[in-house]
């Protein structure tokens, strides 16, 4: 070996077997043989480097044996199987967006996350509209979104229509004080006829295209009608008297059937998409399933199932869009559970505790103040539960896909 102290140009008597030694310049006359590793900033993967640096410390302490190669292999495998991946968490309540002057045209449904089941639901409403005078009554169903993309809402004595495609508001009618207020409303599937229940026990059917009242159904109930649902030409009305009346809207003697079973106000009514079964929820905490084909010659029809799992009023009802006999029902304040049923057998499939106040109804536009939205992804049925909190005038509306 050459003496390091010699300069590179010195002629040495060593043979040319080691010519390289002469050409390497030795700057430092030091005994150490220092390697120089020149890092390249742009080629560095900081994330990975960070990860390796921080986890390597723990690894060394625990593992007594094991060659570095084994370590690296184990780490590589672990990374492959995501075992060492840290959890990435984000706060559910997102920070607010700086409000600008122009409204947002995109629907919030498009803001889907890349990961499959979890859909990102924005915590702030996409649109906020004033809803003064909305009856602060849990048992009434005062809003409905029609298939014509028009949103109907009953505010006190007046019924408003809000067209979602051009954001225009029109007043359909105003009723006088002794007949009002509006207690329920429901669009027919054609998106043209709207059934409206009033406090004077009547149910009116309006045609929104010609802006005319087509019919008034009287005599079906002895107290106000708080819930409605259509099944083609049949309008089912649920009353505070606990009676559900099936009305054929085409004939003058409109009452065709009565379902009696609830003891208290019927606050939720929902026909299955096949029109075979009707689900009704009442203030008596009962959920009834009625089968349409079970109509008997007697005036009284027996229910198919009586389900009493809920411990509070059952208002929210929704049928699964792809499973004709699966129904979801939501219980009120004392219950706060969403329960899933098989309506053929009447068996309870699942029950999820939402941990808070009750869902507001099947439609996802909710006219109550200050809500936090919760998203449940059970069986792939997207459901959004709005938790109402008392507030007076400014009501947020959230536009998501409909459950029905």
């Amino acid at each position: 070996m050459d003496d390091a102290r010699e300069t590179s140009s010195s002629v040495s008597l060593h043979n040319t077997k080691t010519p390289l030694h002469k050409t390497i310049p030795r700057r430092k006359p030091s005994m150490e043989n220092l390697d120089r590793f020149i890092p390249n900033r742009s080629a560095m993967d900081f994330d990975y480097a960070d990860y390796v640096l921080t986890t390597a410390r723990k690894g060394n302490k625990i593992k007594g044996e094991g060659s570095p190669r084994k370590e690296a292999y184990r780490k590589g495998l672990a990374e492959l199987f995501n075992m060492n991946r840290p959890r990435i968490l984000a706060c559910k309540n997102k920070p607010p967006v700086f409000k600008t002057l122009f409204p947002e045209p995109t629907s919030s449904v498009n803001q889907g996350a890349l990961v499959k089941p979890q859909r990102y639901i924005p915590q702030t409403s996409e649109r906020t509209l004033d809803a003064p005078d909305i009856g602060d009554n849990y048992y009434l169903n005062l809003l409905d979104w029609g298939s014509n993309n028009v949103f109907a809402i009953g505010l006190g004595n007046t019924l408003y229509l809000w067209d979602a495609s051009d954001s225009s508001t029109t007043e359909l009618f105003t009723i006088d004080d002794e007949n009002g207020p509006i207690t329920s409303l429901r669009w027919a599937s054609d998106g043209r006829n709207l059934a409206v229940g009033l406090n004077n026990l009547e149910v009116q059917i309006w045609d929104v295209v010609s802006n005319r009242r087509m019919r008034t159904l009287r005599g079906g109930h002895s107290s106000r009608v708080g819930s409605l649902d259509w099944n083609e030409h049949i309008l089912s009305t649920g009353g505070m008297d606990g009676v559900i009346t099936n009305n054929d809207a085409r004939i003058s003697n409109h009452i065709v059937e009565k379902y009696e079973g609830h003891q208290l106000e019927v606050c939720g009514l929902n026909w299955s998409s096949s029109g075979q079964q009707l689900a009704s929820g009442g203030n008596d905490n009962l959920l009834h399933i009625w089968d349409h084909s079970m109509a008997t010659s007697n005036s009284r029809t027996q229910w198919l199932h009586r389900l009493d799992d809920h411990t509070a009023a059952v208002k929210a009802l929704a049928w699964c869009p792809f499973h004709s006999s699966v129904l979801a029902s939501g219980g009120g304040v004392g219950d706060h559970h969403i329960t899933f049923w098989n309506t053929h057998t009447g068996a309870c499939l699942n029950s999820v505790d939402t941990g808070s106040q009750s869902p507001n109804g099947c439609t996802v536009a909710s006219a109550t103040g200050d809500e936090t939205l919760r998203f449940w992804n059970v069986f792939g049925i997207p459901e959004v539960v709005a938790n109402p909190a008392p507030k007076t005038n400014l009501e947020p509306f959230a536009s998501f896909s409909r459950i029905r």
Partner: protein
Amino acid sequence: MGSKTTTKDIITLRGSAAIVSEFFGYAANSILYNRGVYPEESFVKVKKYGLSMLLTQDETVKSFITNLNAQLSEWLESGKLQRIVLVIMSKATSEVLERWNFSIETDKEVVEKGEKSDKEIMREIQAIMKQIISSITYLPCLEEPCVFDVLAYTDNDVEVPFTWVESDPKLIENPQMVKLHSFDTKIHKVNTMVSYKNDEWNEE
């Protein structure tokens, strides 16, 4: 600040966690101001770290950051927080434009560590704050309205409260990265880095 220097400067785990989460609060505010996520008028000047730091006056943003910091402190004390990431996204397209990465190395074996004074830590933090403020010189201008979000990278076995959900890392494709200074309380070492979307204008 002076009282600590007379006795031995023992920084507890709790104290260190408080320093780190407080740092994050001020850093986040500074970033939001600098990058124009919220309007300038909504910020107010306060004295901190020997500098004039800006804090938002918007109640919702304030409470968001406060709640966040409380949770981060908890995780820091348990030693399970690995990093905090503040992402800035376009409001319209939700594309991630900037990513501020604060990675945390925790030395769990804390007994009586650190002859490190508060002052020295403050000085280190001050250096980082100055760097954040001056980052405006090289970060591309954010022309459109933006929103921000905060992600926390934690160990797998951490307790997740109800208000937090799993998220994707919100990475930027082909980012430019700049490493800033770090500070160390001897219990937690915080490294700061910012990644941003490659400015297409520069590439032409």
